[in-house]
């Protein structure tokens, strides 16, 4: 039996609201299936499951807000012993250990049923398929029961605003609708919590290196020359790929610090996206090292609009192993980042700008970027950080090999 827990979707998350179960009891769950939607300070997140088994029991009802680590459901994997599972499948943050009595109480509380709703089997089936909350409906069937007709009415009412909105959107496609997401206050608090923790607990050290971007920029320009606009690359895709390769060489930075250094097998690079409404989200580009630059660009094209619409998946929010911030673009020359705990490093790219650059006794004007590394001194020392920057620079000078 697997205890499926409220995942930790980042150091700043303390609790989440279970908005909707996306699977039904008895359903077989495959690795990567989306089991639920959870509302966090960073929006509505689709929670994936990382085990296989049959959904045995819900322990938390839709609409309930529970702390990270709370067991949400039991998944029967055919084994009798109980294992714990967070969405990441990794020990990001252990939940507080409750005495057994406490847990029992939680389970009891959550499984207690309210008044039974009279609903026909067919109506229930249709309601479940269309995710209609039957507790809000008034039945018109025998003994006030909810029947098919009532559900169909509810569906049409739910769909109508969406349809209207779609129509509206079609009509005025050019005027984008602001995505619904968390309030900027909630977002602000989330960022505040994570960054305070970072600054409080992590002894940062900083390194900086100016890197010549002329080869990388030429390579991008060359690559884009024959491409339709839709397939064009941005320099940031090259930067992400170069960072991934450098991390592969310096694995101590692709790690977490939780009472010791834990290297991670996958290189999942978190990419800071600023939201126009304020705040940031940091979705991960999973397995950045094994993706080509083109694939990374595709991922960026997919992930940025979703991040802005608050439609990320749990794996994208919980599994990053290292972070890149690119805030310098269009503004600052350099950025010194704060590490996103429990990671141990963050690399910052300033604006790529033309600067005098000396090499082999010659001075020239070249596009350069100031790259910084902030790293956790508990986990690594400056030498490791320095090696990382050197490796990164080397990869940027050989873009064709990325």
């Amino acid at each position, binding site marked *: 039996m697997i205890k499926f827990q409220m995942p930790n979707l980042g150091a700043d998350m303390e609790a989440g609201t279970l908005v909707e179960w996306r699977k039904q009891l008895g359903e077989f769950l495959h690795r990567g299936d989306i089991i639920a939607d959870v509302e966090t300070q960073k929006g509505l997140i689709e929670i994936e499951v990382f085990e296989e088994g049959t959904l045995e029991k819900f322990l938390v009802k839709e609409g309930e807000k529970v702390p990270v680590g709370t067991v949400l459901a039991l998944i029967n994997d055919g084994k009798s012993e109980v294992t714990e599972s967070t969405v990441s499948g990794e020990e990001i943050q252990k939940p507080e250990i409750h005495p057994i009595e406490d847990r029992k109480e939680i389970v009891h509380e959550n499984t207690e049923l309210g008044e039974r709703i009279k609903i026909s089997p067919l109506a229930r089936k249709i309601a479940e398929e269309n995710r209609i909350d039957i507790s809000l409906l008034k039945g018109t069937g025998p003994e006030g029961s909810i029947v098919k007709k009532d559900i169909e009415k509810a569906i049409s009412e739910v769909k109508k605003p969406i349809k209207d909105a779609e129509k509206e959107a079609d009509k005025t496609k*050019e*005027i*984008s609708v*602001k995505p619904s997401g968390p309030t900027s206050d909630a977002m602000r608090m989330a960022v505040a919590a994570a960054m305070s923790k970072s600054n409080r607990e992590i002894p940062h050290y900083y390194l900086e290196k100016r890197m010549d971007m002329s080869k990388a920029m030429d390579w991008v*320009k060359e690559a884009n020359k024959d491409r339709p*606009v839709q397939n064009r690359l941005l320099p940031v895709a090259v930067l992400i790929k170069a960072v991934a390769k450098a991390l592969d060489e310096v694995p101590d930075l692709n790690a977490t610090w939780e009472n010791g250094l834990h290297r991670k097998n996958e290189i999942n690079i978190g990419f800071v996206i600023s939201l126009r409404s304020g705040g940031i989200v940091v979705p991960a580009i999973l397995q950045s090292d094994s993706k080509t630059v083109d694939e990374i660009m595709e991922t960026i094209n997919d992930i940025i609009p979703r991040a802005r619409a608050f439609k990320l998946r749990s794996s994208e929010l919980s599994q990053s192993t290292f972070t890149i911030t690119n805030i310098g673009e*269009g503004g600052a020359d350099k950025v010194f980042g704060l590490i996103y705990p429990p990671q141990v490093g963050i690399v910052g790219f300033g604006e790529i700008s033309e600067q005098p650059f000396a090499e082999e006794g010659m001075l020239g004007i070249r596009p350069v970027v100031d790259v910084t590394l902030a790293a956790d001194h508990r986990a690594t020392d400056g030498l490791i950080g320095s090696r990382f920057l050197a490796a990164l620079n080397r990869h940027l000078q050989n873009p064709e090999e990325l």
Partner: protein
Amino acid sequence: MTEEEIKTTIFQLLQRIAPETDPSRLMPEENIREALNIDSFDALQFIVAINEKLNVDIPEEDYGKTSNLKSLLAYLTKKLKE
């Protein structure tokens, strides 16, 4: 397509990318990306949108000609006449 129509289209596309801004208040020689706080990803989305809407392909070396309203308008008007 008249210059006014192109301008309207540009505003619509910018509005879609930066919903909380008012592109119509852009000054002709103001840097669009700076004024509307558009990053490189959104800038590329803008170029893609122009391509889809007006069927004008802006090669990368011409990106510099799209930095303000005045030059962008002139560029697109010229391209559309070709």
